[in-house]
């Protein structure tokens, strides 16, 4: 019973914080809410008996990527958004962006509903691979990552490297050093 309560508390926190990310006018607060959402997700992973995934989530997303987000927001000194430019006279009279967002949102809801209805029990996916103990073991995870999925893994690494080199090339000013 307490596990169910913790599950609902964490999911509520994750969903609430995610909603606050787009609801906030101040970009700094959005970043903080995103971190809270990642933290709640990590808690959910712990509940799924996957402590390694939970810790990886914290180290990579909350610890590294979000620090860079914060860095960029601070350096650009992004101002608070101004909400007065939208026409609020009629719900259908919205800019294209909002309509497109609404379309995507309803698509997401439909897909989620379809996925939940077509899955028989949530443990099915785990049982197909093996018991939870084996799946969450770092040793097994590493072996699978470097044997079965080695191409995808290396391709992703190269993709990230290319993005990094591209950023360096773009950031370097003309005629500067060799």
């Amino acid at each position: 019973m307490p596990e169910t309560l913790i599950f609902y508390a964490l999911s509520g926190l994750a969903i609430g914080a995610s909603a606050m990310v787009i609801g906030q006018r101040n970009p700094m607060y959005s970043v903080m809410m995103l971190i809270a959402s990642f933290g709640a997700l990590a808690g959910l992973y712990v509940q799924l008996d996957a402590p390694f995934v939970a810790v990886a989530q914290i180290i990579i997303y909350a610890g590294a990527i979000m620090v860079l987000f914060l860095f960029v927001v601070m350096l650009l000194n992004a101002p608070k958004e101004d909400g007065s430019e939208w026409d609020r006279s009629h719900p259908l009279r919205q800019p294209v962006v909002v309509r497109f967002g609404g379309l995507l949102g309803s698509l997401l809801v439909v897909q989620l509903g379809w996925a939940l209805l077509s899955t028989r029990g949530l443990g099915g996916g785990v049982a197909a691979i093996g018991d939870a103990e084996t799946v969450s073991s770092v040793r097994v995870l590493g072996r699978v990552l470097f044997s079965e999925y080695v191409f995808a893994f290396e391709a992703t690494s190269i993709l990230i490297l290319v993005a990094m080199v591209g950023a360096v090339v773009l950031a370097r000013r003309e005629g500067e050093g060799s």
Partner: protein
Amino acid sequence: MDLMLIAQLGVIGLTFFMLINASAILVLAERKIMGFMQQRYGPYLVGPHGILQPLADILKLLMKEELRPKGADKWLFTLAPMLSITAAFAAFAAVPWGAETRLFGLLDEPVKLGAADVNVGILVVFAITSMGVYGIVLAGWASNSKYSLLGGLRASAQMISYELSYATSLAAVILLAGSLSIREVVDGQSGVWLGFIPSWYIFLQPVGFIIYMIAGIAETNRAPFDFPEAEQELVAGYNTEYSSVRFALFPQAEYINMTTMAAVAADLYLGGWHGPFLPPEYGWIWFLLKVGAILFTYIWLRWTVPRYRYDQLMRFGWKWLFPASVVNLVVTAALILYFNA
């Protein structure tokens, strides 16, 4: 069963209590050692030989007025010190500090000394320590002052840069021990080699230990890497606008982070609670001695090595320390493969 639960809660409470005391002891130790190194007595008036000085410091800070600059962000300004101190305390939760004990036969089953026994303990400590940077960055931004902002920016750049070397040096130890659990890593270091050398990982990983110590100093923002609060350049850095309790939380978080760094170093490189002469139940005495020795080295370094320049710090971190840690990791992996095959 209930007795076990009480004992476990007692161990957690004791860990928390010792950690609070560690910051007070470190404040006094730092001032006493600084005084000793500068040929003076250090604090001497409060209590015998000045040992109650931390109490006086804390009371003074509690009595002060809490100020908040007019342009500061109300929420984040308050949140930042809380984040700092929470991350500092939480990181120690996964650090074990002693073998199992039955409390002189009082308990039927042995209780493990350490707040929580996590099977990915090393990563948990690393993850939570890396969250500590938010406190400093947010303090710098929320204060709405250019010195604070510069301090916060420097802190985030420095911590991201040195986290890499820090994690890579830990990875070499993980390879040696074949486990992510700190308790298992410590138990892999029991016994001796050739009859007299304790089988600690520092002898297998001398380069890794040095890299860990340097990166640890940079992670905790201590001199000679204390750029976030370099007083000659930035007044006081990220905590310039803070006063009273909110201010006190930042140095306290720093001291607790130092303790965590030293405790992890003692566990991973210096054999934790394993040592000669003492029975295993009293291994925590060895652990305390080792942590104390490392913390003394930290303070020693602070008062003998001058501060670097900021570009030197970045160059050193990326061009020397990180490549060295990667080479260390690759060589360790190759040697393990060679000797195991």
